[in-house]
């Protein structure tokens, strides 16, 4: 045990003093060259001082031309000083040595032989300890999912040695353990954490447990494996003991001198003794397997390794990315929906406005146009009165005559009333004709095709399910005529409406209307053709008589008024059966105005 060894005794000090005193006085006159030995003070400077100072003194005696200085350092401090060339030798643990071997060209010259006669190549291992009675923890792999205390993850004997064993068992400490707790130096804290139940197990250097008699029976070693000739229970393979190594700039002669001097040191009880350099291959293997230290490069760049190492970060980033994508898509989607809704709303508004505008135009147009419209409501009511009255009297006369109670006075009364009501009806009709005639005279020059197209549009606009209207224009382009445009459109509307009414019950193919524009001697001809059932000859002859109608709700005034309009323009309106198939053709002839 190293700790046992470093305890100085009065006797040993006395010997050293004596040795110094017997040195030849002349040697002291020589200028001593400084020789710096860096020592890893892993248990603190005080402990290290106690441990290594005797050796330094003896070395100084053996090397009279040098002044030996111990430089107590931690891992980083040693690396730094060595890099700066301020150390000639280093004494450190095998793990650290191997690291510096790669980094700084450290080269071992001797290996510590702790037990003086043991096997320096198999000197260091680790014990995984748990409380006695934890029967569930007997093998190293039983620690999966447990809490384990270590002094530091950087510690060689305190952690990395066990790590290698776990790795060999397929147990990755970072993920397989519930917790890997770093309790820090000194290693006693590991015992404490295990004893207090803060953790299930702890890792200590081999033989540390055996050096503490007070802990006897408190702990047991997990996964202990037999090691021939090894005095302690150990859970791992064994590794070489600490080396003393030269650095690149250390003169080989000096190295040889120091090696010889150290080998020549007497092997006393509890004294650190040195043996020939051990093989540190096993340490290399450990580092290579764990991909740490000089073999950390093995771990670095593979994508898989990165992914494994950084998977939480990657997962988080991926989640963020997916979230961002989803968010973006959703926002885009919403924007799309809202945009189209807005567009629809705007389009609808435009459509409504357009329709309102058209409706308004149409209403205006019809208001100006519609002789019939102006007439139908009041006209019907007005005509109803005399007609109903005449009917009543006439029927009453028949009734009384039938009953044999018809008196002359009654006959005279009824006949007089009937005549009066006939005059009343005639007066109403007279007003209509006068009204229609009064409208003519506002002549204007209009392009025929445009005038007719306008009437067709108007007609189609009035109906929910307008039929197809084909315009066949055989007039020279731009042919104009001087007419009362509104009146002529009124006639066309009437003719189109008649054609539509005639075909309303027919299949759609026969509902088509054709408007033909043709030249006529000194004028034009506008014909409207339907494909309806046509009219009986008897009706055809009386087409333009007032009150003649074939429609259930018709007044029989439309064509009569249309004819009046045509005549007022010096033209005429006629209707005949179509020669090619069913239907009627109504023809409006309008001469050019003088």
């Amino acid at each position, binding site marked *: 045990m190293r700790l046992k060894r470093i305890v100085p005794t009065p006797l040993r000090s006395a010997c050293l003093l004596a040795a110094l005193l017997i040195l030849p006085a002349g040697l002291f006159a020589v200028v001593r060259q400084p020789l710096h030995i860096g020592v890893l003070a892993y248990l603190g400077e005080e402990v290290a001082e106690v441990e290594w100072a005797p050796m330094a003194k003896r070395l100084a005696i053996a090397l009279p031309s040098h002044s030996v200085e111990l430089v107590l350092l931690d891992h980083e401090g040693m690396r730094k000083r060595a890099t700066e060339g301020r150390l000639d030798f280093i004494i450190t643990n095998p793990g650290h040595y191997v690291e510096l071997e790669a980094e700084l060209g450290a080269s071992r010259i001797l290996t510590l032989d702790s037990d003086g006669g043991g096997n320096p190549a198999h000197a260091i291992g680790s014990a995984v300890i748990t409380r006695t009675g934890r029967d569930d923890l007997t093998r190293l792999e039983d620690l999966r999912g447990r809490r384990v205390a270590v002094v530091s993850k950087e510690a060689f004997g305190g952690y990395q040695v066990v790590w290698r064993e776990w790795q060999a068992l397929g147990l990755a400490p970072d993920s397989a353990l519930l917790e890997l707790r770093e309790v820090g130096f000194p290693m006693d804290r590991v015992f404490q954490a295990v004893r207090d139940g803060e953790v299930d197990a702890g890792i200590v250097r081999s033989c540390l447990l055996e050096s503490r008699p007070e802990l006897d029976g408190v702990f047991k070693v997990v996964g202990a494996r037999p090691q021939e000739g090894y005095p302690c229970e150990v859970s791992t393979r064994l590794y070489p003991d600490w080396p003393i190594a030269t650095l690149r700039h250390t003169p080989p002669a000096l190295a040889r001198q120091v090696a010889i001097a150290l080998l020549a040191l007497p092997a006393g009880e509890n004294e650190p003794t040195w043996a020939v350099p051990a093989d540190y291959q096993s340490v290399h293997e450990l580092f290579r397997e764990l991909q740490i230290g000089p073999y950390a490069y093995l771990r670095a760049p593979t994508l898989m390794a990165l992914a494994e190492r950084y998977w939480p970060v990657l997962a988080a980033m991926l989640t963020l990315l997916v979230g961002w994508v989803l968010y973006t898509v959703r926002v885009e989607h919403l924007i799309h929906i809202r945009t189209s809704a807005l567009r629809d709303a705007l389009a609808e508004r435009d459509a409504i406005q357009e329709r309102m505008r058209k409706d308004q135009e149409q209403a205006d147009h019809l208001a100006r146009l519609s002789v019939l419209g102006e007439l139908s*409501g009041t006209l*019907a*009511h007005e005509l*109803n*009165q*005399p*007609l*109903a*009255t*005449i*009917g*009543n*009297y006439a*029927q*009453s006369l028949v*009734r*009384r005559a039938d*009953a044999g*109670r018809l008196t002359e006075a*009654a006959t005279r*009364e*009824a006949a007089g*009333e009937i005549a*009066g*009501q006939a005059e*009343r009806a005639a007066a109403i009709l007279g007003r209509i004709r006068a009204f229609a005639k009064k409208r003519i005279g506002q002549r204007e020059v209009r392009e025929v095709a445009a005038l007719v197209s306008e009437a067709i549009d108007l007609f189609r606009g009035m109906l929910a399910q307008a039929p197809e209207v084909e315009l066949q224009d055989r007039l020279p382009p731009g042919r104009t005529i001087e007419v009362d445009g509104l009146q002529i459109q009124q006639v066309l509307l009437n003719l189109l409406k008649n054609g539509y009414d005639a075909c309303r019950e027919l299949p759609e193919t026969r509902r088509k209307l054709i408007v033909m524009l043709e030249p006529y001697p000194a004028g034009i001809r506008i014909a409207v053709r339907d494909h309806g059932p046509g009219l009986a000859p008897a009706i055809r002859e009386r087409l333009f008589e007032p009150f003649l109608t074939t429609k259930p709700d018709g007044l029989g005034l439309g064509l009569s008024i249309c004819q009046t309009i045509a005549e007022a323009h010096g033209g005429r309106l006629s209707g005949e059966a179509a020669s090619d198939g069913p239907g009627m053709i109504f023809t409006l002839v309008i001469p050019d105005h003088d």
Partner: protein
Amino acid sequence: MTELDANLIHVIDDDDAFRRSLVFLLESVGWQVVPHRSAEDFLQACPNQPPDLGCIVLDIRMPTMSGLELQQRLRGEGWTAAIVFITGHGDVELAVQAMKRGASDFLEKPFKDQALIDAVATAVRRASKDRADSARREQALARLARLSPREREVASRIARGLPNKQVARELDISEKTVHIHRQHVMEKTEVGSAAELAHLMLQADPRALD
């Protein structure tokens, strides 16, 4: 011709010629007709429903008070008169409204003479029946009014056909007392049987025995 004599037909129309023609037509089949130039004229002539009112032939559209308004007003005053509406062109909606408010019929000008005559006859019959029903109800109520409260309780049970024994139990009186009440009920209401009594009570109130 008692129906024709007892029922005067009131014609209300603002068109003089047409109104005269209506009178001429209705008189042709023997009705007694009273013409009015407006709703106001009619109300002045008949402040209350005349007992000999057969029906009212009413133009739906008139300048000041319309036919509909007159109908509303008469209903409000409790008139039961049957009204035949005459509508001009395009007044069908108004006519439907009038029918919903209890008009007897409506005719659209110009109409066939028979249509008007049938409508008036139907309305008059309805009015006569209403009058008769009303008279019978008055009479029945008067007869039942002669009963004392206790007799009325007994009467309604007899009318439902309950035997004296059960009536006695329900009213908690002796069977003999029921028998005496029964006799008084029959005498006072001048009926000879439980069935006649039931008929009388239903005349007074169609839901009397519900």
